[in-house]
């Protein structure tokens, strides 16, 4: 009712928004560290998902709580929705290329069930060809037998 309580509400929303922004920024910072520390492209992409999806969503929520005018809030909602729709597309394209090319360190894979199951349309270039020996690691159970029937 009184202008005082209204101001209190505004400050509370600002505080919640700031907490959300800080959480998103901290996740982004750790993800950037992960981008440097993780060993190959596919692993780094997991770190990259955080600022792209979780971090940005948190920051957008925080920004919406700060701005609070309907135009801005709806536009920020759209930004979040676009990000949710488009991030998996990029991740899928890049991830598939990384697995076909040299973007994955196969010695660090515990099991790779995608090797050797390619259909005839695209025969060669994505196998870890003869320059790389077949035996990858002593504790890999099935060397490259493709995926098993166990669900």
């Amino acid at each position, binding site marked *: 009712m009184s202008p005082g309580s209204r101001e*209190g509400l505004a*400050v509370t929303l*600002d*505080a919640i*928004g*700031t907490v959300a*922004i*800080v959480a*998103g*920024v*901290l996740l*982004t*910072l750790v*993800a*950037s*560290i992960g*981008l*440097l520390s993780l060993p190959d*492209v596919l692993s*780094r*992409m997991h770190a*990259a998902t955080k*600022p*792209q999806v979780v*971090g*940005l969503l948190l*920051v*957008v929520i*925080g*920004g919406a709580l*700060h*701005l609070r*005018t309907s*135009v*801005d809030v709806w*536009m*920020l909602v*759209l*930004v979040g929705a*676009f*990000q949710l729709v*488009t991030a998996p*597309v*990029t991740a899928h*394209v*890049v991830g598939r*290329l*990384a697995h076909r*090319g*040299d*973007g994955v360190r196969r010695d660090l894979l515990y099991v790779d069930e995608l090797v050797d199951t390619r259909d005839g349309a695209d025969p060669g*270039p994505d196998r870890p060809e003869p320059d790389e020996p077949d035996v990858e690691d002593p504790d890999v159970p099935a060397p490259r037998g493709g995926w098993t029937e166990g669900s």
Partner: protein
Amino acid sequence: MSTLPALLDAVLVVSLVLLGISAVLVVVRLLRGPTGLDRLVALDVLVAEFLCGLVAYAALTGDSALVPVVVAISLVGFLGSTTVARFVRRGTDR
């Protein structure tokens, strides 16, 4: 009660600084990345951090003129990274 908004502003400034530090880390990966895909992923993250920075700055100043910019960049960034992925593929095919 009047100290709390000032504190919140200070926290926002600190988070902008943290975003800057993470952007520097990402640029290191961008310059060092052995393959083109590394650079592509790093560039995507850089765009996301830029968006975060814009939203945080808008929250700090209350200036909502930047919000349409955020919308536009989020769309263009997606188009850019999927397009570049096609070219990167040519480069790494052996």
